[in-house]
């Protein structure tokens, strides 16, 4: 390999920030992303054919996005960055002294292989939504909160007319206000977090004035749209014959159990639900990078423990776009220095490092506040399907634990098939672990995406095209 090069996987805030930081410092960068446009989940763009006049109405931090977008455009025009859209990366291969081969699928059916060689790799693969099961959660009309938001941002369509937004986490606020602003009636925002825990963590939470202002702005919007916010409440069940017609909600007691006397029904045709986010760690895990709990482990320079592999953004721990930008920036500068054969001076990125440290502390506090009810799994009836791909019921999972000796997620999977289907446990992993009463671990998914056997049969065999 003549000239050092970098492959960045993921064109969200972290991947874009790293791409610009490294390319500005003379590194040849290939940016791969599965979407047609850069931006990731956070800066998701409406499809151009829809002719959106004011997409910024759905986004905040529009100025930051414009800066990233224009920077990328300039580098692509200058030939310093290759931006490969619609590239679905399924595996990153270590090739010894040859560096890395990034294997992707392209084409309308994602059946054609594409391969990119690089001396270094940055994993900026983001995160995905965690949703816990409850009776009725598989009814049409029940969507993830992020899915509802993606529909608004990307397709400019409303998922329904009367919505309930439920679960836990900071994502519920923008989803509720976004739906209301787009014309939906939001019957309630049902958040399981206990207001007392906000008070307990008030110092850490107030340490980020920007975040407090953001929260206040959403609260103002909720009031303006007359959205009822029910704290320390949960959705007990969703009801409907063919599709969602209503939900039952209830207040929680001090131990996080449902208070049966507070159950009531809300009529709605959409339930947007989310219980937080989980990092995408598949590529990192298959590369052999250390994963702590659910997060890819990195050092102060955003390096993983595998030489030549950096990681930034949600994949190293959920923390939102500002944290992703800071981590991406640091990673890009570290990579530029390391690939030039010198140790970087952390003083160069002192401001980004301060932002990163502050936001990590803030989100650690957020994590401790926004938690699903401690005993949520008790609400999951035996007949509730917990793994939708393989149609495995909660009863089958419980039988595997109590009758067949399973004590961990992997054995539950092998005995019940929960997590073996299309989603490979991404959707159901947390739910199955909770119902089984065992620890949630980052699942091993050697292929980040399903790969045609014909592509696999030839992967990595030839020199770069």
């Amino acid at each position, binding site marked *: 390999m003549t000239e050092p090069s970098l492959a960045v996987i993921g064109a969200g805030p972290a991947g874009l920030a790293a791409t610009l930081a490294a390319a500005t410092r003379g590194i040849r960068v290939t940016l791969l992303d599965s979407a047609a446009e850069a931006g990731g989940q956070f800066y998701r763009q409406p499809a151009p054919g829809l002719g959106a006049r004011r997409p910024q109405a759905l986004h905040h931090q529009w100025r930051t996005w414009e800066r990233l977008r224009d920077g990328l455009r300039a580098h692509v025009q200058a030939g310093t960055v290759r931006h490969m859209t619609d590239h679905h990366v399924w595996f990153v291969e270590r090739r010894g002294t040859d560096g890395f081969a990034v294997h992707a699928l392209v084409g309308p059916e994602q059946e054609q292989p594409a391969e990119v060689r690089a001396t270094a790799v940055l994993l900026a693969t983001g995160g995905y939504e965690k949703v816990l099961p409850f009776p009725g959660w598989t009814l049409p009309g029940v969507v993830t909160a992020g899915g509802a938001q993606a529909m608004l941002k990307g397709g400019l369509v409303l998922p329904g007319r009367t919505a309930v937004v439920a679960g836990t986490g900071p994502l519920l606020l923008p989803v509720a206000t976004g739906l209301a602003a787009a014309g939906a009636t939001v019957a309630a925002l049902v958040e399981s977090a206990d207001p007392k825990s906000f008070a307990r963590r008030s110092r850490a939470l107030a340490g980020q004035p920007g975040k407090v202002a953001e929260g206040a702005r959403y609260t103002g919007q909720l009031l303006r749209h007359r959205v009822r916010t029910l704290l320390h409440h949960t959705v007990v069940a969703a009801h409907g014959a063919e599709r969602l017609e209503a939900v039952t909600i209830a207040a929680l007691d001090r131990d996080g159990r449902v208070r049966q006397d507070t159950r009531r029904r809300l009529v709605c045709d959409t339930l947007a639900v989310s219980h937080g986010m989980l990092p995408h760690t598949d590529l990192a895990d298959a590369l052999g990078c250390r994963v702590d709990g659910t997060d890819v482990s990195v050092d102060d320079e955003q390096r993983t423990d595998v030489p030549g592999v950096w990681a930034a953004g949600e994949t190293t721990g959920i923390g939102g776009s500002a944290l992703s930008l800071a981590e991406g920036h640091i990673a890009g500068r570290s990579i530029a220095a390391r690939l030039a054969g010198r140790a970087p001076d952390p003083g160069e990125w002192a401001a980004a490092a301060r932002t990163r440290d502050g936001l990590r502390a803030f989100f650690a506090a957020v994590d401790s506040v926004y938690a699903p009810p401690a005993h949520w799994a008790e609400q999951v009836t035996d007949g509730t399907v917990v793994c939708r791909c393989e149609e495995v019921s909660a009863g089958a999972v419980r039988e595997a634990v109590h009758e067949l000796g399973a004590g961990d997620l992997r054995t539950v999977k092998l005995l019940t098939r929960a997590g073996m289907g299309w989603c490979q446990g991404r959707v159901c992993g947390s739910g199955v672990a909770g119902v089984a009463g065992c620890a949630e671990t980052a699942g091993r998914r050697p292929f980040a995406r399903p790969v045609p*056997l014909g592509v696999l049969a030839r992967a990595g065999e030839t020199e770069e095209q």
Partner: protein
Amino acid sequence: MVGAACALYAARAGLDVIVVDRGPVAGGTTGAGEGNLLVSDKEPGPELELALLSGRLWTELAEEIGDAVEYEHKGGVVVASTSDGLEALETFATGQRAAGVEAVRVDAGRLRELEPHLAPGLAGGVLYPQDAQVMPTLAAAHLLRASGARLFTGAAVTEVLRGADGAVRGVRTGRGEIHAPHVVNAAGTWGGELAALAGVSLPVLPRRGFVLVTEPLPRRVHHKVYAADYVADVASDSAALQTSPVVEGTAAGPVLIGATRERVGFDRSLSLPALRALAKGATRLFPFLERVRAMRTYFGFRPYMPDHLPAIGPDARVPGLFHACGHEGAGIGLSTGTGQLIAQVLTGHAPELGLAPFRPDRFPASASTASTSDSEEAS
């Protein structure tokens, strides 16, 4: 799996059984297996005799718990691409028939009836109706449940307890001591470590294997199908049977493709060349698989012995110690026969197969230092 079968047959022979595992049920190689119950790949000899005994016992068990363990008596088809290859296959099958294996020669036309999606132009093959399949994790869990044995999971054995006379008197685990006059080592790939705790050497080595799993499909592969051709290499001192991956449909829908064989120690990193070899072999046999997606892959470490035969029976060096490990890639299939033989010798009966070829102390003590670093190309 072997431990679960030992527990079942020992309990049915009237013994009080406790099963100890450092992990969960099927946490070792069993959970990473395909569940092959094969006679087709075995040449006449002690392993084939054990496979035939095991097959009969699996058939009996299937009447009790067949559905629960996804037992499928699907049969195996071994195909040959050339007429020379077919003749070699037929010669191999002739030897097997004499040992009691059902093996039906099929011509190219019949082959297409058996497996309509096979690649065109194959010379023919041999059908082995006795080949069958179970889901290994379910099998281990249900055999354990049927045994009624007490189960201690998450309890690693840290010591084999021995009396003043040298005989075993139980084991110490992370969860306390368990006293018993007999200890059966069914620790699979880690059987050598357990033997060492009892002060004896047993050269069990890991041999890594990857399995590919496709997206769920309507049934298009009906048997266990693999290609075999003798290497007619006159320079080779033993004519080794070279096989391609076993391709098979499952009741749940996915096609399983397995497995590679590599001696790379306990290396847990993913090997793209190994997976490439599996995908190549499978798509060569079944061209429609080209566009079918691999959903996932998993790997395990087969327990292999230098002479490719398991260790089954009492250890003459330590009274009360029995071994039932080292079955390489055939442990699921051979587990029932192994469990039956162990139960027979535990209760003082004559085993229905001679145990001499499986004697645990048949290796010189130095054999355990055999190299683990040499690697083989994936089969």
